[in-house]
Structure formats: C-alpha cells, structure tokens
C-alpha cells in the first residue's frame, strides 16, 4: 500500500523532523545530567580520603587538609533549620488540607507558599541579614540556620498538604463517627496514614537546603575552624566550595570537587529515597 501523495509525504517528513528533535532534546537533557555526574565522580573521588572527613580546611598555601569543619557546620545548620522548619511546615500544611476547605485564608496562603517555594534564595539571605545579622552586629550560625529554615518551610508545607489530601475521607469519617475530636482524628489517624508521605516532604526539604549556598554567603559566611558556637561565623560546605573553587591553590580546588561530590550524591540519594517512599505511600492508600 504505497501512497505516493505529495502532501502525505510532506506531512510524514515534518512529523519525522519534529519527533527526531524531541528525541534529541531528551538525549541532550540526559547527557548533561550524566556529564555533570561523571565529572563530579572523576574529579571528586580522589579528594575523598580519610583526611577529607577528619581534617579542617587548610589555610592559604598550606598543603593537604580536609572539610571536617565544613561538614560539621553544614550538618548542624541544616539539622537545626529542619528541626524548626518541619513543625511550622507541617502545621501550615495541616491547616491547608484539613481546615482550609471553607476558609478564605487558605487559597491565599497556598498561593503565597507556592511563590516562596520558587523565590530567589539569595533574597532570603538579604532578608535574614537585615533581621538577624544587623541586630546581632555579626555574621553567625544562627543567621545561617534561620535563612535555611525560611527556605525549608514552603517545601514541607507543599508536600504535607499534598500527602494529607491523599488520605481517604472515609478514614476521617470513621474516626469522627467513633466520637473522636477533630484534632485527635488528624494527629492519630490522618498523620499516621500520611506518615511516609510527610517524611518525604522533610527529606525533600533537607535535600533542598543542604546545597543552598547563596543565602549563607552573608549570614553564616564561613570559618576556618571547627566551631559549634552559633553566635559566630560557621563553616559550611557550600560556601567553602564556592571560595575554594575560585582560588588558585590546587589542594583547595581538589577539596572543592570532593565537597561538590559529597553534597550532590547526598542530595540525589535523598531525592530518590523520597520518591520511592512517596510512591509506596500512594500505593497503600
């Protein structure tokens, strides 16, 4: 069956061109991902020795060194920001999902939250500089953690609301029919049903703030030494990577690649685990 119609052939040809281009676009996207990951592995693995995790960042011109102080500072500030951001985000998400149905505030909060989710993180840094660094008269770990917490909240709000909405209404109605007050229904029934999904939200929030650099540049700044004093500058991986990658010292640049590898794979693993958890909880509910 050969249709030797000119129009038909033209349409077929146009279709082939379009579809090939869309294959190429996908290929390019995937290629960039693998190029970046490959480069990170290639340049980063040589840096990840024992020293990397046990020694402090080297001063200018000195050899060797590690990232111990930066890793500790990052874990500390990320942890603190998550501890603050999670309850705030969960409660807000609860309001949107459970109480927001006939409220005029809820749509506005949802809208603003979605905007904050994409707002430039460096502006959050400027904001925290204004309300924390200026009154304290110094850069500090507190300021860094505050900036990260502000960035974490919208992520937790979003996923909490989405996950609570997946819990079937019949579960809530059953609990209410037994005479449980609404807050007990939410805490003991809805939260339990959505627990995996809500955990996903927290993991995504950690993944989001673990690599944030811009809001730390002028809040936590950096510190050459290990310090848990939250009132002073605090070392952290992203800012150290930024400073070291722009330097002229070979060992600094190598450490920067090591740090980049560590951060990226931590974040990718968190993301993948979160996705798997979310798809499980969707299946069971």
């Amino acid at each position, binding site marked *: 069956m050969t249709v030797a119609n000119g129009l038909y052939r033209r349409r077929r040809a146009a279709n082939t061109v379009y579809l090939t281009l869309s294959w190429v676009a996908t290929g390019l996207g995937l290629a960039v991902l693998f190029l970046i990951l490959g480069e990170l592995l290639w340049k980063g693995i040589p840096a990840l020795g024992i020293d990397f995790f046990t020694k402090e960042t080297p001063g200018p011109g000195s050899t060797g060194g590690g990232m111990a102080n930066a890793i500790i500072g990052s874990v500390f500030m990320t942890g603190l920001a998550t501890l603050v951001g999670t309850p705030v985000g969960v409660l807000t998400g609860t309001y949107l999902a459970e109480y927001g149905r006939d409220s005029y505030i809820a749509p506005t909060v949802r809208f603003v939250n979605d905007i904050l989710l994409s707002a430039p993180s460096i502006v959050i840094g400027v*904001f925290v500089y204004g309300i924390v660094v200026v009154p304290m008269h110094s850069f500090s770990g507190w300021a860094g953690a505050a900036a990260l917490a502000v960035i974490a909240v919208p992520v937790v709000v979003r996923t909490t609301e989405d996950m609570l909405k997946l819990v079937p209404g019949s579960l809530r109605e059953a609990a209410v029919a037994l005479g449980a007050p609404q807050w007990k229904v939410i805490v003991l029934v809805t939260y339990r049903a959505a627990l995996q999904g809500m955990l996903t939200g927290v993991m995504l929030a950690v993944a989001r703030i673990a690599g944030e650099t811009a809001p730390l540049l002028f809040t936590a700044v950096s510190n050459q030494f290990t310090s848990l004093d939250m009132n002073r500058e605090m070392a952290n991986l992203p800012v150290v990577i930024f400073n070291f990658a722009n330097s002229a010292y070979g060992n600094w640049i190598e450490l920067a690649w090591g740090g980049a590898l560590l951060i990226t794979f931590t974040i990718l693993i968190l993301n993948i685990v979160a996705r798997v958890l979310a798809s499980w909880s969707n299946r069971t509910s």
Partner: protein
Amino acid sequence: MASTLTVETRRRVDSQRIQDAAFRGATRVFAIGVLVLLGAVLVSLAMGAAPAFDKFGWRFLVGQSWNPVTENFGALPAIYGTLVTSLIAMLIAIPLGFGIAVFLTELCPPALRRPIGTLIELLAAIPSIIYGIWGFFVLAPVMAEYVQPALIGSLGQLPVVGALFSGAPFGLGVLTAGLILAIMVLPFIASVTRDVFLTVPPMLRESAYGVGATTAEVVRHIVLPYTRTGVIGGIMLGLGRALGETMAVTFVIGNANRLSPSLLAPGTTISATLANQFAEAKDDMYVASLFALGLILFVITLLVLAAAKLLLLSLDQRAAK
C-alpha cells in the same frame, strides 16, 4: 439528653472542645505566618533599601556606575544582565523542554516514562553551586576554545547582529551564564509542560489520531491549543527561577559591572552582585544599595511567579470542571 450526661463526661467533652479549638488555632497561626513572612521580607528589604532610593531616586534604576569608593550606585548593568541571561536561557530551554515533554507524553515507551522523567527532574535537584563549578571548569573552557571562536568567526562578521558576538573568546560571560541557566530551568519547564500535556482528555487526542493526524499535528493542533495557559505558566515558572538564580551565574558570568553590547563579554546580574559584594560591604550607602538590588529582584520575580501561578490555577479550574 444533656441532663443524662454525667458531670465527668461533660467535663471531658468540654476539654476536648477546647483542645480542638487550640489545635485549629495553632495551625491557623502558622498558616497566617506564611503570609506574614512574605510581608516581612518585603518590608525589611524596603526599609534596608530606603536610604539608597532616597539618595538616588529613580536614577538608581538607570544609573550605570557602581562605585563603592565614591558611593555612586546605579543598577542598570545588573538589571540588564539579569534580563539578558534569563532571555538567553528561555530561548534555549523552551524548545528543549517542550521537546522533552512531547517525548515523555507521546513517544516514550511506557516502561521508560517514569525513569526518564525522574532523571530529568533530578537535574532540578542538583544544587546551583554544582552547576557553577561545572560551568566554570568544564563548560567555560569549551566555550572559549570552540564555541565562541566559531561564533565570532560566523555570526560576529554579520552587520548589526555581529555586535552581539564581538570581542575576545573569554569563555566566561553573559552567553555562558545564559547557557548554564538554560540547563537549570530546563527540568522545571519540561516537567510542568509534561504535566499539563497529560491533562488533555485522551478522547480529544485519539479522535485526532483517528482522522489521520500525525503525532506532530496532534501536538500542534490539539495538545498545544488545549494546554496553552499551562505551558505559558510553566515557562513563566522557569523564568522566575532563571531571574533569581545565583551561584551558577556568579561562577561563569565574569562579574564585570558594565554594559556591553557583546554577549561574549563579562557582565553581572543582580544576584551575582549580591553574592560577590554583600559580605564585604561596610558603608551604609553601599549596604542600602545592595538591599535595593535585592528588593528589585524580589519584586520582579514575585510578579513573574504570581503570573505563572495564576495561569496554572486557571488551567486547574478548567480541568476540575
């Protein structure tokens, strides 16, 4: 009925009622807190920026000099750089993101749909500093060695357009920054576009195939008209990201505070200026001018993101009908 309740039960019911109100109130307070947060960011930026706007007025927006020594500040080069890098990013990322969405919804074997979609979304999870360091050490040398000399040799020789591609191939510059931004916003545009493509009722799509349309024609004449608002919303979302992106740009734009017609020349953006200078700024007027830059960036991105959200919301409402 009430009289048959014991005093004990009564008390328990009452205390439950109070607890209920307290829990509801607590969630409400935090929800309103999100609104307060946005207001607080705007107010604190505006207060920090006030001295700069008092001193320079509207000239701040059009001034070209950025001189901490003479305390003369103008935001034009930074605003220009922000807009131009984002424009380049969108010109590259829109067709690519569109292609990926078409691939994922129309072409991809169903078994590969999830994994490939996830891989594309993982591009969005990589922190921007990683794009920066990769752009600085890998992309910029490639640009300097191959891409930019080729551009200078071909497009650079044309009249008018040539000015955009003149100068020396530094590797670092506005074009490289736009390219890195394109990679960064690609996953946002691709995944939103894919999601809105999936809202097209299968019946519409199948009817078109049924009357003999090719895949390209189905996308062009059925899917796109149906999802136009959503696609534009996704593009605006990507634009909002591109405008405020900081670390990747800071690494590769070359950080020169001047207006240059050439895309190959170093430039700066609002976010890159903030990233490079804020920690060192000491004088009041210098800090105020940086706050003013932050305020300008925040207001621009708020408007773009709000428009994006409204477009996507209108699509949701139509889908719900």
